[in-house]
């Protein structure tokens, strides 16, 4: 980096920012309930019920992309296993929802979920204990991905695994988890995963009102997640992260603990990803091991880079846009979707490496590294 990100540091919490953030937030929070619930369904601009969970799903993806941007855009850690944290959060929520089914399952067992009855399990395994309480499940949604990231990150960053090697072992991690969750005797429903949810906190998940509530919760989580990421990146820690992204060796020699900085941000990112997964599951109605597949995790990176990495807003924009395009194209012309996605991957890296936000100049206060800057040997990422 030849130029320091001037201005941005002080301007991160300016009145202008709050005005923009709150304006966007309130519009997005209000628009969907107004268009969906307050309008008569036959009104031309009314939002049909089926679109609400779809929009909610995009918001969850946006939160996931945000979490990846935090570590990739700001600390140069390209995790290709972020889908694993997302899926773990989703599984925790799925377990809570499974326990809420109670006797309404196919087999009517008050304690065991259907797939356990089907597999002839006699009692609930220990790792399912407590998931009938929402508070416990919510704690697990934060703790499970967080702890995994903490342990994995501690081992990895301590031994200075970085760059490509890190990407490859995170990919191996999610691949191993996928294989594990595909096994029936793991107690997580095998390759069918968990589905047929009934209630969340006493409300029927199929009711439009519940879905609207989940959408609002996702919106709120995204907003808070954005503020948290912005808080981190605008703080002193954020400066250290940016510095170590561009020249890890120098930061270490200056006396900063690169390991701790990376570990903190990696863990926070994993928790955000887990939260996104937990909100995602009740809206799509299923969680299964394919969420762990390495391809899914790589796709998150493309959302971020389409929007513009290292900008936070870009991740959100990218996730929503790419997924809207996916929904539309897989419906309209399914065979072209992979061509488009592939072309997106190539063009964002070759033609507009700073993404959509970079094109509009919105990210003037924070520049992602472009190859033009001379990178000293030994510090390429």
């Amino acid at each position, binding site marked *: 980096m030849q130029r320091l990100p001037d201005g941005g540091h002080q301007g991160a919490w300016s009145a202008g920012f709050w005005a923009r953030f709150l304006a966007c937030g309130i519009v997005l929070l209000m628009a969907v309930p107004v268009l969906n619930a307050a309008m008569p369904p036959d009104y031309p601009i009314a939002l049909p019920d089926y679109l609400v969970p779809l929009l909610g799903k995009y918001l969850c993806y946006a939160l996931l992309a945000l979490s990846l941007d935090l570590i990739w855009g700001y600390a140069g850690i390209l995790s290709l296993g972020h889908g694993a944290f997302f899926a773990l959060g989703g599984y925790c929520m799925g377990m809570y929802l499974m326990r809420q089914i109670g006797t309404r399952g196919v087999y009517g067992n008050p304690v065991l979920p259907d797939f356990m009855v089907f597999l002839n399990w006699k009692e609930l395994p220990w790792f399912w204990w407590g998931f009938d309480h929402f508070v416990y499940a919510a704690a697990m949604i934060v703790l499970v991905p967080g702890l995994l990231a903490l342990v994995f990150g501690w081992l990895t960053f301590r031994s200075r*695994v970085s760059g490509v090697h890190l990407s490859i072992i995170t990919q191996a991690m999610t691949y191993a988890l996928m294989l594990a969750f595909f096994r029936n005797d793991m107690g997580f429903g095998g390759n069918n995963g968990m589905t047929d949810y009934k209630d969340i906190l006493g409300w029927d998940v199929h009711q439009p009102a519940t879905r609207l509530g989940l959408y609002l919760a996702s919106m709120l989580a995204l907003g808070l997640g954005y503020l948290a990421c912005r808080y981190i990146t605008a703080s002193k820690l954020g400066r250290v992260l940016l510095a170590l992204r561009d020249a890890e060796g120098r930061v270490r020699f200056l006396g900063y603990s690169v390991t701790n900085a990376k570990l903190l941000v990696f863990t926070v990112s994993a928790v955000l990803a887990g939260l996104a997964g937990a909100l995602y599951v009740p809206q799509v109605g299923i969680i299964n091991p394919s969420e762990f597949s390495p391809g899914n995790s790589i796709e998150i990176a493309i959302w971020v880079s389409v929007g513009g990495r290292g900008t936070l807003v870009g991740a959100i924009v990218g996730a929503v846009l790419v997924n809207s395009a996916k929904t539309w194209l897989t419906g309209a012309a399914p065979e072209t979707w992979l061509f488009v996605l592939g072309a997106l991957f190539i063009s964002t890296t070759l033609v507009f*490496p700073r993404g959509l936000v970079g094109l509009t100049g919105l990210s003037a206060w924070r520049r992602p590294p472009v190859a033009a800057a001379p990178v000293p*040997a030994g510090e*390429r990422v």
Partner: protein
Amino acid sequence: MRLHLRILGAVLFALLTAAAPARAEDFALLVGNLGGESFAGKEKAVAGLGALGDTRAVPILQAMTDGRLLRGVDGRVVLSATEGRTTLVRDAVTGDEITGDDPNSFDRIIVNNRLRSTIEGALGALTLFSADPAARLAAARDALRHPSAEGAALLARAIAAEQDPTIREAMQQGLAAARLVSGSKEERLAALGALGTTTDPQVKNLLDEFRSATGTDPELQKAADAALASIGNRLWLVGLAANLFQGISLGSVLLLAAIGLAITFGVMGVINMAHGEMIMLGAYTAYVCQELFRAFLPLDWIDGYLLAAVPVAFLVAGAVGVAIERSVIRFLYGRPLETLLATWGVSLILQQAVRSIFGSPNKEVSNPSWMTGGFDPIGGFTVTWNRLCIIVFCAVVLAALALILHRISFGLHMRAVTQNRSMSSAMGIRTARVDALTFGLGSGIAGMAGVALSQVGNVSPNLGTIYIVDSFLVVVFGGVGNLMGTLVGALSLGVLNKFLEPLAGAVLGKIVVLGAIIFFIQRRPRGLFALKGRSVEAEA
């Protein structure tokens, strides 16, 4: 039953020794006796036929158990066979067709249970002398499974006549088993010694039975224990050899998938996520070659399609590789994470292109006839030809690559550009050309790997994604930029996987291996064979 067999055996033995000469007349006489009235007479005749060792008796005895052996009014014994709507009647001895007689004038020769088991024994004995080696081998194995005193004499005679060493060995084991059951103490001791050299689980059961039988001579018990221990050792060794072979086979598959990556990632530092698709293109090239051979060349040339597919796949995948390098990767040197994303995009496009052209279902690529089947080197597990061919092919590819890297000028340029791009350029090496060709080489090798993998797995558009994670792990585990590391990495992962499989199951074994690699990389981030020197820092 046993007593009855003993009697039969005695009869057999008597007949064997007494009636060995003058076979032809005996055969006709005995067949004639099958039409006798008394069961005892028939039984004697059956036993006689069994002892005679004349395989002409086999269809006759089979017909007898099936109730197709008839007796004419003149006492002649005939076989009836239904062919379509007509029933043919043939003379049992000469095989001549008998016409003119009223089929209803024949009586069925009646068989009772006791006679039936005599026939079975005789049939088993007769197949020991069959002209078909497979039948003889089966009979010898059968004798091992059901040892009896009377079998011993027949086996001894069969061994004397046997030319094929494999069958003779099987017969000798059968003989030993028979002697163990019925022989004298010395014979039993010798039999125990002989049986200790097998790996057949049947023999182990037999010995277990023998060992646990009450009232056995302590000396015999000791010998049995020794034989059992020896079998246990051998079984363990066979298991070890089988695991090792399967491990090396899996390792060579991993190695083939990873060699190309060792060049593009290891030597050039390019994260090529489309590497798996190069493998897939190679596999589809094999499929297309097979179809072209089927369509345009004489039928007996089909086995050659694989030989044609290897160079074609190299060229196809290599050309695609050069195209990718020229159009995408050359703009991204020094930015590995961006390269990763761009090549992932390339891989999605290639997958979808292949899916659009060939369709999503698996394509069938058959092994050529010279690669089907296998052989059993030490007894107990089969080395299949296709696996063996892949191991050999893998070794050849690796050797050729080592030659290219270290013996010809292109390899020298390649290594020079890898080590110091600007210095090489200053020395007059056309670095851009070397980059393109190196990438083409790596991709071409992946294409050849695809041809090999089409022989052991499914050919589908997703083929590449199966191998991509594994290939990267092999390269990273072995140490980036080091062919030796890739070799050792692939083989050790393959062997480790196969040894874990029986302990933990296939999927869990794989998970354990993945976890182990993740931990290993954290302990030694530069892999098994780390490069030393300044280039190490540049890699970070």
